[in-house]
């Protein structure tokens, strides 16, 4: 029992460290690499506030994906929207007392779990049913979907099929945040759920999940269309003017 709690505590500390440091290193790499040329996909906004609006539409509504393929958009947007609600719902396991907005989101977050699983199932189905998508799918693409689906299904199972001792889970999580390890229920579904979440955090910075921070650094989306008005110069390119 105690060994289990210690094991999972260490796993979560390690996973959190790898996630935070890994993503930070990646983001630093993106931020430090210059974008020497103006390459926004036009028509593009001409001002910084316009760029912020374009990026917001991209992040909130998946605008480009909507233009491209309605099925992928429906499943993808449903999954991501539901994931957001589910994550917000889970915030309550990390705070005491619980914020009012988090209390409010509980109902939606609970049922969003189904939408999340449905979205993932739709995305996965495309990998088998659409020959073009089947062609480009790698084992890692399937494993990512399997991982997320297993997390979603194990979570739903604990909520709707076999309840776990959620009070103890919350005590464990709050304990983790205060570096005081509390007992963890030896419920197999819970252990699978938590283990897979830790795995997801670990693979995040070394996998295609980097699309999340990547979008914000994509020059075709985050640059303003103003090359005639301002001289845009990377340091390595500026050096050539002095020769």
């Amino acid at each position, binding site marked *: 029992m105690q060994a289990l709690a210690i094991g999972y505590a260490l796993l979560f500390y390690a996973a959190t460290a790898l996630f935070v440091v890994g993503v930070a290193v990646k983001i630093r790499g993106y931020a430090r690499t210059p974008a020497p040329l103006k390459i926004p*996909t036009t028509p593009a906004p001409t001002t910084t506030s316009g760029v912020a609006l374009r990026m917001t539409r991209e992040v909130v509504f998946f605008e480009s994906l909507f233009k491209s393929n309605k099925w992928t958009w429906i499943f993808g947007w449903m999954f991501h929207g539901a994931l957001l609600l589910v994550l917000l719902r889970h915030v309550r396991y990390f705070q005491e007392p619980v914020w009012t907005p988090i209390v409010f989101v509980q109902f939606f977050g609970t049922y969003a779990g189904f939408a999340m699983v449905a979205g993932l199932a739709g995305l996965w189905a495309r990998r088998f049913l659409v*020959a073009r998508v089947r062609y480009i799918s790698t084992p890692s693409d399937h494993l990512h979907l399997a991982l997320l689906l297993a997390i979603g299904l194990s979570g739903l199972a604990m909520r709707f099929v076999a309840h776990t001792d959620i009070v103890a889970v919350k005590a464990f999580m709050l304990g983790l945040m205060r570096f005081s390890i509390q007992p963890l229920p030896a419920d197999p579904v819970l252990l699978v759920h938590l283990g897979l979440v830790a795995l997801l955090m670990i693979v995040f910075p070394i996998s295609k999940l980097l699309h999340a921070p990547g979008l914000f650094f994509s020059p075709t989306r985050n640059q303003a269309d103003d*090359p005639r008005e301002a*001289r845009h110069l990377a340091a390595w390119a500026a050096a050539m003017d*002095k020769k």
Partner: protein
Amino acid sequence: MAAAKFETPALKPYPVIPLIAEGAMAHSKPFVAPAKIQEAVGFPGELTEGWEQRAVAKMGELLDKYRSLRVYMDACVHCGACSDKCHYFLGTGDPKNMPVARQDLMRGVYRRYFTFAGKHFPKLVGAVDLTKEVLDDWWSYYNQCSECRRCSVFCPYGIDTAEVTMAAREIMDSVGLGQKYANEIIGKVHRIGNNLGIPEPALADTLAGLEEDTKDDTGVDVRFPMDEKGAEVLLVTPSADFFSEPHVESLIGYAKVFHAAGISWTLSSKASEAGNFGLFIGNYEQLRTIALRIREAALELGVKRIVVGECGHAWRVAYSFWNTLVGIGAGGKDPFAIELQNQLDPRHKQPTHICELTYDLIQRGALKFDKEKNDDRIITFHDSCNVARASRMGDMPGGQFVIPREIIKAVANNFHDMAPGTICESTFCCGGGGGLLTDDLMELRVKGALPRMEALKNVVDGHGVNFMATICAICKAQFSKVLPYYGFDMSLVGGVHQLVSKAIRL
């Protein structure tokens, strides 16, 4: 030069996404540049031992220099949004012509040498060693991308395959594997001053001839000046405008616009080319060196404005990159940029597209037209990829779509757009852009034109369209060659200023 026989795809009444046909275009490869051509532009002459390490090192260098490449190598989730967007995939069915698969040819190598997952679990993430077989795939398929950016419109992360293709070509050039067509042309620009290799006396002759022809046609002395110091405008135009049909008709159109508006202008024998093939091979130094000719010509001639003729990729380089590369623009704060920016007239956009100039004159009522002179034509407009998705005209985003169409409507009575998913930001490449306008890639060019040809057929059948106007030298050359394969007359294609030329009152 005799290319293998191939079948021209049949035109369908509505677009159909083809079934994937693995390896359908694996045989398509451009001619390799011989050592002489490679060395003339500063690349190694041929592939020699140890190229693998040098290529990987070059990739590392590019990953540190280009944020686009670094982010795009990581961000793809294989969602397939781009998989049915490339005209070369739509025309050939070869799955490696899906943008995501084309990118993956490099992503596999990137993962193997630059990521944890690829170093330790290559099979899991599709990481591969850079072998001769992989290089052969690169050679074939990175020369089946016209860098048109259509995929980047639809990618949820804005991943632009053009950036990946440019990096791949840059890496291949750096280890001695260069494309004959593109690199030979770059050599000509350096040696002679333009892509076609027209020497100054021949150019002067041509311009004198054009003055005579225009005089015969109109009875008016329309000038075609070259190297005239103190002219207000330096016109930089693709060299095809001097010699090729239908390109030259647009050149006559520009000259008439300048004449009618009373704007003094000049061409430059030093910068007798707007095209910049440095873009196609992704080489920043070449891009910059080629653009420098124009800066130097502008300084020597003392012009106040720089205007660019009808050329798609040239306008991308001019509009998006000239300010960065050589300080042609505004807002420069360094001495290099200020030297030129102080000379240029700040009341005008620098550089200006010829369509912006003409449209502005029309708006101000400075040009008069006899529209009925174009009444024999029912016109449609083909948006050229680099203008549509990599540049702008006017003050408003999307001005690059509005302005050419408004010019056409001002000089002609009959205009019909093609289907919405095939124009403006969703326009299809002509099939010959990005350094692929060479006879050794004829099969690719014909098949890649399929989506545009289908959209064209619909307006030809439905609205009697008999003229497709465009503002790109490559589009014009490509369509002239490819239209007959699909049963159209090659004279169906022409320039926007060809229409202006016909209707303008001098």
